[in-house]
């Protein structure tokens, strides 16, 4: 008994230390942004550690294998900080979220992965549907609004991104504010999109779920008739809009800020048009799920709780310009809040029906040009 207590105390201390150092990391990454105007008004991320009695990290140790669909560049520091703080070794397999989900589905119960950290909800939904996830602990789930986590408690969102219409102001005076305006003939051949991109397909899935199959097909056929220009990646869409190759681009909100951070605001002309209250303004999430067959379930839960801690949330805001999903945290400087965006209310778990979406896109002829 005394032994257990001392371990617990140690673990709690570890967790507190973890949060503190994570904050440092977030601040460091701010400093790294190098005096850009964006960093000055940023509120420092809250240092309040999760005060749950049920801290999953208390008993966690050993090592974890993480399949990460989020890029190494973005999250490697986060994982190494996690290891330092918790003494849990993390082996990360980086890849494309879809590919990794496909890999997990192919591996089935034999998957060596303990945790799947995905770029989007659809991939999480697919793994969840295959019954390969275990439920997350309430202390983790409750940190995030119900809208941004799995209804079956299988996965939790870690950061959000809004769909926007990126536009080139030199070509467009008044950008569309709803997806139906995109069907206007004035945009014929002027809209860029990335048909194989998961965020685009998530949007179409949301369209199917919210408007029904028939109306979704009608919209897609009309969209197709407007001769949109397909690109392989969202980044390519953004560059095309910025270069004036197309007038509008259907992308996520942060692509603009990435380019500004890389090339300086003075070199970027493109602007985001948000679509409050419209399906086109869908907010999708990156998220994490713990695999059922893991031999370190405590470790998996610990990592999940780590990623929804205030400081990790702050890290995502600063490093990838994404929306924090935990109540009370502010988004990246100058962005409208999630409440202001008023995204369509949808169960993100429904975004797992991406196979049907692809069949529909296939039928319409939009999946590939």
């Amino acid at each position: 008994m005394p032994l257990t207590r001392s371990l617990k105390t140690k673990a709690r201390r570890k967790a507190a230390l973890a949060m503190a150092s994570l904050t440092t990391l977030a601040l460091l990454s701010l400093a790294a942004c190098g005096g850009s105007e964006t960093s000055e008004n940023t509120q420092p991320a809250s240092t309040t550690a999760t005060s749950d009695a049920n801290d999953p990290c208390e008993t966690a140790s050993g090592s974890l294998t993480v399949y990460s669909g989020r890029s190494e560049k973005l999250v490697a520091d986060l994982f190494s900080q996690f290891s330092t703080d918790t003494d849990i070794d993390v082996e990360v397999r980086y890849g494309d979220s879809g590919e990794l989900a496909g890999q997990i589905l192919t591996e089935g119960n034999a998957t060596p992965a303990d945790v799947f950290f995905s770029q989007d909800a659809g991939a999480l939904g697919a793994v969840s549907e295959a019954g390969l996830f275990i439920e997350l602990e309430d202390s983790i789930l409750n940190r995030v609004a119900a809208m941004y986590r799995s209804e079956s408690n299988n996965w939790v969102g870690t950061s959000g991104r809004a769909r926007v219409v990126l536009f080139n102001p030199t070509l467009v005076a008044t950008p569309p504010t709803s997806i139906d305006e995109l069907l206007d003939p004035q945009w014929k051949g002027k809209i860029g999109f990335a048909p194989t991109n998961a965020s685009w397909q998530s949007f179409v899935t949301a369209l199917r779920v919210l408007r029904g199959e028939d109306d979704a097909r009608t919209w897609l056929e009309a969209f197709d008739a407007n001769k949109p220009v397909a690109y392989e990646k969202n980044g390519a869409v953004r560059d095309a809009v910025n270069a004036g190759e197309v007038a509008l681009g259907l992308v996520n909100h942060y692509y603009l800020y990435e380019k500004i951070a890389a090339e300086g605001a003075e070199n970027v002309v493109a602007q985001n048009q948000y679509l409050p209250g419209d399906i086109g303004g869908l907010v999708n999430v990156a998220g994490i799920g713990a695999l059922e067959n893991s031999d370190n379930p405590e470790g998996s839960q610990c990592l999940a709780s780590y990623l929804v801690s205030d400081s990790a949330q702050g890290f995502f805001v600063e490093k990838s310009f994404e929306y924090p999903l935990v109540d009370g945290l502010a988004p990246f400087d100058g962005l409208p809040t999630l409440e202001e965006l008023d995204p369509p209310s949808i169960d993100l778990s429904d975004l797992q029906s991406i196979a049907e979406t692809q069949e529909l896109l296939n039928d319409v002829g939009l999946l590939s040009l």
Partner: protein
Amino acid sequence: MTRPPLALVLPGLLAALTSIAPLAYLFDIASDRGLDFVWDEIWQQRTIELVARSLFLAASVSIVSVFISVPAAWLVTRGDIPFRSGWRVLLALPLAIPSYLAAFAWISWRPSLAGFTGAFVVLTLVTYPYVFLPVCAALSRLNPAIEEIAVIHGRGRSLQLILLAARQVRGSIATGALLVALYVLSDFGAVATMRYDAFTWVIYSSYRSGFNPSRAAILAIVLVLIALALLFGEKILRGQNESLLSARSVDANPRHRVSIKPVAIAFLSTIIVFALAFPIWRVVTWVYRYGSEDSMADIATALWHSVFFSGLAALATIQLALPIGILAGRYPSRSTTLLEQSTYVTHALPGIVIAISMVFLGVRLLEPIYLRTPLLVIAYVALFLPVAVGSIRSAAEQIPDSLDEVSRSLGLSQWGIVRRVTLPLLAPGLLSAGALVVLAGMKELPATMLLRPTGSETLATRLWTYTSVSDYAGAGPYALAIIVFVSIPTAIASRRL
């Protein structure tokens, strides 16, 4: 008919099995939803359109590659242009440039290239060496007498001689064109970057965002069928004209006066500018402008992993390709030909299909080595076996039968012949086969992504990580490292092939 030694047949069968193992997965997955589903998928108008588009691209690239490669090969083997061997290596070097990198270099320079034009240009520029190299090899073995006769009869103009030579090395041209066609059918990088709606792109999407492995598997099976048809076609084109090659090695290649030398040099330079200099210039520009985000240590580690995995793959592939190559080259019969061709069946499959099927088989049958180096090496073997087999077979074919017969009359067993005659004579062929596997392994992406030991990043996976977010600064050094270090095995392969 002499029976091949069992010591070759058994490993040969094993190797062929490795390379067709992915088919087991495909049939398993495709049959998941029943035969009706399979037929429905195949007989969709869309699928037929895809077949047509992919074949059109493959045919265009193959044909143009032949038209580029044959004159170029003739000039560097038979013509009297200066620095022949230098040209030859330079012309082979585009093999070192991954298609996704070349495509990225072009489209980031001229976005309007997107579509068929871009895919066609990029694929031609990165695949023509598959025709150029075997044609060079065949031309340097060509009996000079025939060309001499042509010259005597007043048909000595370069173009006439090239046409004459082309007719004689028809077999090598067909083999090269087949490799190009299979490469184009299975390539993802270029068609995806250039946004040309081809088979592989759809297969990739079905896996990556559709979680729809059945459709991908069915389309992959269609690709296998196309590959089989191409193999059959190659056999017909190849004909039986190898007899025109002289049995005795030609001491020194004859040099023919090239009628319009400046035009010839300009032709060769143009190829090199587009296929080699342009992508290198782009990459160097990125590195020069953005520097490097990663430390030298990161780059060195990635390089080490690339070299290590592809080096092991080369050793294993040669081990397995050797028996098949010898069987097909030295003991030609219906069954050995079948054995050889079985390795080509999966060659048209996109890397992702091979990779996913290796995940499927690895987790079920080879769990102890799953996500460890050995399984990655096995996947590389399945991917690159045909390349190595082809190179070893053509080297083995060049060994006259009479050497085997003499050896037997001098008391050597079949196995003794392999050891004392065939292998020593194959040594240079083995070196080039190994180099080909190393260069292909270093460029390979999908299988590396899915099967590499967790945490072991290679140049290709790093490059992908950065290019997938259009991060030129991060991508530059890795792109440059790939080009530089893949050039070494490419140069080795080109000297011999």
